[in-house]
């Protein structure tokens, strides 16, 4: 039995046992998670992402190797720990996925619409973004998070993201803050990070993207926001929308000083 199957077994057991055994099953899962760190399936996405980065694709038959993620064309190492950031060539703040779209359009000649077609993977319909995000972020493993707000547009993005974080709406009156602004709380048995507090904000941000065992997919930070908004009963977050970037700026900045450590593996 490989590690993944054992993990699935442990999860099934936890579900069956319910009642008094649930807590110890949660501890078991934490142990499996630790074991899995040695062989995180995210590596499959990372390898595919690196291929995609180097492959000549699109109408211009070009690779992404000249893409400037902020540290100069083609420099990937450590780039993600400084994102989102202001890009002068586009005169706007961009997160990783937005920058990838920009490069697909400008370097590879894809139309905007074609570039954003499959933001998230499901089953056999794989997403290039999740693969690229896995590879690019893996190249920042060990780097300190250091998103700078010195540019006025970064400051503005942060302020908008902060407002969005506390914005209550929808049928349930939920905001991000409902679930993520007090320490030590949980939903059912799931621990909720307090994203307004330094240690939790660092841990919560620096462990995405993540391979989700329960979904068998690698999930990007754009996906994390998309799915939390779904649970918040909001409409559907647009991939690489200005709001998604602003919220990412807010959270990435709050994680400043934390050591980036993703792609991770999660429940």
């Amino acid at each position, binding site marked *: 039995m490989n590690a993944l199957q054992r993990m699935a077994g442990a999860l099934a057991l936890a579900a069956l046992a319910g009642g008094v055994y649930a807590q110890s099953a949660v501890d078991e899962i934490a142990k499996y998670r630790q074991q899995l760190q040695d062989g995180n399936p995210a590596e499959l996405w990372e390898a595919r992402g690196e291929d995609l980065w180097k492959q000549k694709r699109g109408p211009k038959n070009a690779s992404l190797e000249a893409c400037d993620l902020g540290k100069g064309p083609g420099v990937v190492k450590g780039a993600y720990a400084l994102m989102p950031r202001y890009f002068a060539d586009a005169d706007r703040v961009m997160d990783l996925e937005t920058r990838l779209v920009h490069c697909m359009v400008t370097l590879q000649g894809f139309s905007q619409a074609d570039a954003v077609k499959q933001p998230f993977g499901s089953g056999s319909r794989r997403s290039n973004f999740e693969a690229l995000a896995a590879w690019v972020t893996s190249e920042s493993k060990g780097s300190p998070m250091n998103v700078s707000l010195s540019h006025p547009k970064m400051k503005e993005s942060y302020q908008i993201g902060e407002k969005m974080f506390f914005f209550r709406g929808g*049928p*349930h009156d939920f905001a991000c803050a409902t679930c993520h602004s007090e320490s030590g709380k949980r939903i059912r048995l799931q621990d909720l990070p307090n994203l307004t507090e330094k240690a939790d904000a660092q841990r919560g941000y620096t462990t995405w993207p993540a391979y989700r065992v329960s979904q068998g997919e690698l999930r990007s930070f754009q996906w994390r926001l998309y799915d939390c908004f779904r649970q918040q*009963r909001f*409409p559907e977050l647009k991939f690489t929308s*200005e709001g998604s970037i602003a919220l990412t700026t807010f959270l990435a900045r709050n994680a400043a000083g934390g050591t980036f450590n993703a792609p991770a593996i999660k429940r």
Partner: protein
Amino acid sequence: MSDEEASARALTVMKASFNERGQAKLDRLDQDETQRLCSIPPSVKLPKEVTDRIEKLNLELVKYPTDGRMLGDWREGEKIAQRGVGMQFSDNPKNPAGGNCYACHQMTKEEISFGTIGPSLYNFGKLRGNSEAIQRYTWGKVWNAQAYSACSNMPRFGHKGILTEKQIKDVVALLLDPSSPVNK
């Protein structure tokens, strides 16, 4: 950017950052006064006259059952308390929504998979009794949590049409019926 400018900019940005999908229309971003006043970090304390106003306006929105009976069937109430779906764009609007009370509250001794955003409600009825006044408070609390505590994190289940009158009777019974596992 001043605080007010930031709020206005954020709203404009949000309006452009979502797609309507299924039952989740863009009007979910249109805040009522309560939502707008409560869009603040928990560390910010609103002045008492503001919280008083929020509670008053929400209390006025509570609708009590037309037949005057507030206690339904606790067995059904338990199912509603367990049920987590409803109102998400991924949910079928034809199916009834749940209350998902266990997401935030301990309720029975048997169910240990409970969240801690709200206080424990274990033995709620045993501790408070089952008087007319308690029934009315419990009903009002589930119908509109902010009638009794401004900016509560608890959804306003009746006011927002998440749960029906019948469903609320059932969860009130779960809390107050002496034979409910909440009170064992």
